[in-house]
């Protein structure tokens, strides 16, 4: 085995985790295989399908394009940590179910993380902006329309929640 391993620290979904990775280990494999966060999926290993999208220090990143050592010291959110309120689903997750924005669900963890970033930056996006924002996330099941509906609906929900707070 390659003994040239690196000790790194990742804060995943709010929990600090220490692990030892090889230089070539991709973040997605570190998350899935070393730390057990199997929410991010591997679909293409070439940054084209987006199923592995997670947030690294608040920004959406395809975790198959980032070496785990490069993520040392970062804060990572996977789909498992999308909902910070533990007794329910995130408004995006609720909206994806209500609008039938998922079928097989394999692209969904990445799609949700990309959509969550969009709504942080642009709380009230147009349908065109939603479509543009998910260009890097491939879905073969839904034809995208219900995903766009779901993101739009989640934006409305979140705006209402914001107004209610």
């Amino acid at each position, binding site marked *: 085995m390659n003994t040239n391993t690196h000790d790194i620290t990742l804060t995943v979904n709010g929990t600090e985790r220490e692990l030892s990775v090889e230089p070539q280990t991709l973040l997605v494999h570190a998350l899935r295989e070393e730390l057990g966060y199997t*929410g991010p999926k591997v679909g293409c290993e070439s940054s084209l399908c987006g199923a592995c999208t997670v947030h690294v220090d608040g920004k959406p990143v395809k975790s198959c394009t980032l070496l785990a050592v490069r993520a040392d010291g970062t804060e990572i959110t996977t789909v498992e940590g999308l909902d910070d309120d533990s007794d329910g*689903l995130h408004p995006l997750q609720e909206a994806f*179910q209500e609008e*039938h924005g998922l*079928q097989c669900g394999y692209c969904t963890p990445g799609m949700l993380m990309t959509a969550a970033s969009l709504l942080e930056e642009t709380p009230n996006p147009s349908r065109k902006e939603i479509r543009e924002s998910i260009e890097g996330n491939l879905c*073969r099941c839904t*034809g995208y329309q219900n995903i766009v509906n779901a993101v739009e609906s989640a934006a409305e929900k979140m705006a209402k929640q914001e107004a209610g707070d």
Partner: protein
Amino acid sequence: MTSQPDASGRIFGSSVKRREDPALLTGEAEFTDDKLPDAAHVAILRSQFAHADLKEIDTSEAENRDGVIDVFTGEDIEASGIPNNIPTAWMLPGLVTPQYRLMATDKVRHAGDAIAAVVAKDRYVAHEALDDIDVSYERLDAVTEPAKAVGADPTVHEEAEDNVAFDFDIGDSDAVDDAFAAADHVSSVELEQPRIIPNPVEPRAAAASYDPGSDELTVWMTSQNPHLHRMLMSTATLGHPEHKLQIVAPEVGGGFGKKIYHYPDEAITAWCAKQLERDVKWQATRSEDYVTGNHGRDHVTEAELAVDDDGTIRGMRVETHAGLGAHLLQFATATPSYLYATILSSEYDIGAIHCRVIGAFTNTAPVDAYRGAGRAEGIYVTERLLNVAAKDLGMDQTELRRANLIDPDQFPYETGVGMVYDSGEYERAMDRALEIVEYENLRDRQADLREKDRYLGIGVANFVESAGLSPSKAAGELGSKAGGWEAGVVRFHPSGKVAVYCGTADQGQGHRTTLAQVAAEELGVPIDDIEVIEGNTDKVPQGMGTYGSRSAPVGGGAVATSAQKVVEKARTIAAHQLEADEADIEFEDGEFQVKGAPQRSIRIQDVAMQAYLGHDIPDEMEPGLEATSYYDPENFTFPFGTHVAVVEVDPDTGEVEIQQYVAVDDCGEQINPMIVEGQIHGGIAQGIGAALFESAEYDDGGNLVTGSMNDYALPRANDLPEYETDSTVTPSPHNPLGVKGVGESATIGATPAVVNAVVDALEPFDVDHLDMPLTNETIWSAVTTEGGS
């Protein structure tokens, strides 16, 4: 969560939210590669050449790499004495069936054939070790295109010198000759349907665990039909006893046909687990899946239509060369023959049809069913040919279609290619679609825009598809080596909760929701008290799986039939307990009641408890309340519809903008309209993908040029329009639920609708036909050379 019916109050037919979703949305759902986290990893060395003699395979360096557990070649597999032959599952007269070994030992026939497998402690080491294996090849020339492969040198398989696997024909050729002689006019088109890579977002994967003490082997895998995989691994490849082999399809991330077949990879993975007596797993990389998993389509066709000046179609003649790839997967022969030629009548009363199909081996990835399988290719031929003929006759595309539609009173309607359509109201769906797009206004707008050198195109496509594969006896007579039934079990637990088991296997269709709706409807039990179990050969008694738009009509048929049997047994018990004649017991909303005496009643859940207590049930009756059915459909079901695409084409850039897309589908009764619409949306996206973007391209050496997602164009969110969908409901008269299936319909309708629209837009440039995909370059070239076809 609680699932509520719509305002109608009926659970069947309501857009119930999917119970699958919460686990998928939170990352808790487990797919194959999420299983066995501590397993060793398998990586498979693929032939780098499309056609070569294998001379020497040196694995010693790989074996010595740190972290490598073992390296195996085809000779190791042969030496283990397993059957080692993946069979095709549909025999045609004269079919050539070469052996398909798990790993090549003497010759490779496409760039993707397995040569060796490395098992290592982690996935990186396994893949790195592949580079340590030294293979010496003696290269041979390759053939990649079906029409050119016939009679070509070299041959892919020694058994088929001319590369022809089969030469199939159907229909009455004499009647067709007469029709062509008598008709006023003959229109013709030559067209190609490129290879499509199915591209479920989850690549194929397998994980295997072996217990040497009990000889039990468990394989988790990306399967659309776990029982078929079990049978094939047991009888044809691994030889592992079927009763000690468990196949589990956990969450499966899309299929579209790709995950029907038995490939070498899952057998190699399971074989390694047995050999090493340890857990192992394998997941294809995307590029690996592209060169090993099936592609779809790959047809080259000449088609002619005999038609009178008034638009009456008299006959149709089709000849197709279909590429099969280097190996025959299970439906490779059925897809371009019985699933293709038998649908050429589309929605029309054509009468005399003849179709010949030559299936050719090529040095490429195997070709087999992809969403729409055969029906998509057939409908594309007919719907393109009709538009060519309409132009020749100076008729509008809708006028020619309308003149030849099969009338509602002609059902059951036997086509010229052997199908008996069950029911249809074709004109109603077509009228609805034309009404939504405001067809006449569009024609006016098109004329106005042309004045301004802007090119609007309106494409109409009608379709029928044979869904609900398939009546077993009929399929058997035509060559199928498998049945077409589906198994369903409905089991009350003593507490009144219900377990439903079905042999279908979900890859995103939402069966756990829809099959629960079917059972809830029949049993009158709250849907939240019903669990649906699929995708596990140890839990579900038997099954044929999910493909061919069969889960609702055939799986649903099995569940409904079992539920009805359960209700009948419960009725007998209820009559006994209520001391009434069975004929006087009515069943409604889950409650048995004595006719005219509503106070004398018992809920079916309470009957279940009585059935398991066995204290007070009729003499001679066995305790328990459950039923199993092997529902074998009487016929295929025939969903249909009309799709209309409105496009604007920019002749200067070749760019196509889809301005409007309308789909009116009729899949009979709908179990869950939300899920039906989802299937239509996804189907349209894949149909548009084929029309405008997708094509798997090989170079002359047999290398897949579009070997990654960088090179193979898949439609993304911004490439696709908003869809307007509507439906009509024409129940299937022979299905217990009146359903027809919907998984493939929209893929079938969308492709010809879009191509017809683009060709319509280019009418001023005298373009009669363009081959897919209609890329900017294809269109620009056609426009600049005028009449590019």
